[in-house]
């Protein structure tokens, strides 16, 4: 290689080694800046403008024919099927209507009771529908993109759910799209409460699409297979009492001080196309300054202890 390079007739600019060093250093710098400081989001947004429509195009080109077939077969569905389905839906709707009536009465009663006891009101959480635009193609991550972005007032940290439970959390917002990290993403944490006992804990994603883990639960913790986990709402990010997961397996080994608890997400984390983004963050009262410092140091300590 060197012998061919000593005699150069044409000037070709710097040698490949120099170029590699330059671009490798440049990308390492970018990596460092992105991981450490997150200053590059505006550049990412600008570059995403031409890239994201192309990605959606690629997705629709693949899924498109299947959807067209679905529509066509739906159009050709027999009248009898439609009538039967219509009847079922009507019956279901009347059941729901009565339930809703009861719910309204309960809500009114609840707010009155809360007022009587001088407890702060549960906020209403306005929500908007969004559709999955395309999926993340990184094998290491569990993410989807939905078709509502900062133009529709989506902000990072909002919770995404389907009709049964929590699906994920908005982690990055583009003008017309936003990135949702699923709760099954590795090390994604959701603060929860066991519905049966009220025990508080944090559930982590395992990186596997159908599993969540409850870590650092003592062996004596009162948890059974089949327990339902709901969001606790004390973190101020997740609204309270949304369904998250169900305990499917508990291993209490003699060697480990912690029980190994596996849970399955209740929402169809990888099946839905329509999702709901819950707007309206839960507003907590401001902490008094002295207490705030105390909790800050405490949380640092607890972080250290969990690590």
């Amino acid at each position, binding site marked *: 290689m060197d012998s061919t390079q000593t005699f150069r007739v044409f000037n070709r600019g710097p040698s490949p080694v120099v170029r590699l060093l330059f671009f490798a250093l440049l990308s390492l710098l970018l990596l460092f800046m992105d991981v450490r400081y997150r200053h590059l989001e505006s550049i990412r947004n600008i570059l995403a403008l031409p890239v994201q429509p192309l990605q959606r195009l690629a997705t629709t080109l693949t899924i498109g024919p299947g959807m067209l077939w679905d529509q066509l077969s739906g159009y050709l569905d027999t009248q009898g099927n439609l009538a039967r389905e219509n009847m079922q839906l009507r019956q279901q709707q009347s059941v729901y209507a009565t339930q809703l009536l009861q719910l309204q009465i309960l809500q009114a009663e609840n707010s009155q009771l809360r007022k009587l006891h001088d407890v702060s009101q549960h906020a209403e959480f306005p929500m908007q529908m969004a559709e999955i635009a395309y999926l993340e193609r990184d*094998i*290491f991550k569990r993410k989807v993109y939905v078709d509502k972005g900062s133009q529709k007032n989506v902000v990072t940290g909002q919770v995404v759910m389907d009709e049964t439970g929590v699906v994920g959390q908005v982690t990055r917002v583009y003008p017309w799209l936003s990135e949702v990290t699923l709760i099954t993403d590795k090390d994604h944490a959701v603060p929860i409460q066991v519905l049966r006992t009220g025990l508080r804990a944090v559930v982590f994603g395992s990186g596997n699409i159908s599993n969540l883990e409850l870590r650092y639960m003592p062996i004596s913790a009162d948890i059974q297979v089949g327990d339902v986990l709901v969001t606790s709402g004390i973190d101020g990010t997740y609204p309270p009492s949304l369904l998250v997961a169900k305990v499917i397996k508990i291993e209490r080994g003699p060697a480990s001080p912690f029980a190994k608890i596996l849970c399955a997400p209740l929402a169809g984390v990888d099946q839905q196309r329509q999702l709901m983004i819950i707007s309206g963050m839960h507003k907590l009262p401001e902490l008094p300054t002295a207490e705030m410092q105390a909790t800050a140091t405490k949380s640092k300590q607890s972080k250290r202890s969990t690590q």
Partner: protein
Amino acid sequence: MSDQYSKDQEFLLPASSTFIALSMFVALLLNWLPWQGLWLALRPDFAALVLLYWCTHKPHRIGIGIAFAVGILADVADSSIFGQHALSYSVLAFGGILLHRRIQMLDVREQPLQVFPLLLISYAVFASVHWLTRGSLSWEFFLGTLTSALLWIPMSILLQTMRRSRSDPNEL
């Protein structure tokens, strides 16, 4: 076969910039199809392959700078950390330029063996960046190098035929 291949190479059309850009664009689109699950692990990295093809066949026109730019686009599309794809594609392009004489000399059926280690190194760079930042790794990620190396043969034959002159020499 080997003679045929090198003889054909003399009559290849000069690769126009639009053709190179178009092939890169199609490769990126193929990468952006909604791959999932095991298919995602088995997916060959089309962009890396086409980039490597041009780096080995036109090393003075397609170099590390363009590989870096394509990598940045891939980073935005996959919302990976800025520079992760860029770094791995830059390393890949460097390998391609370093080995371009050897790869051009060989028959197309023998080329995958030369291409495979280059792909492996570039995948390893990508995975090590991920490992350093997130601390976890899944080994099925490396299956992509095998399928990519196998796809090298049909892809280079396809690009080679598209670069061949269409006009029939006996027509005149």
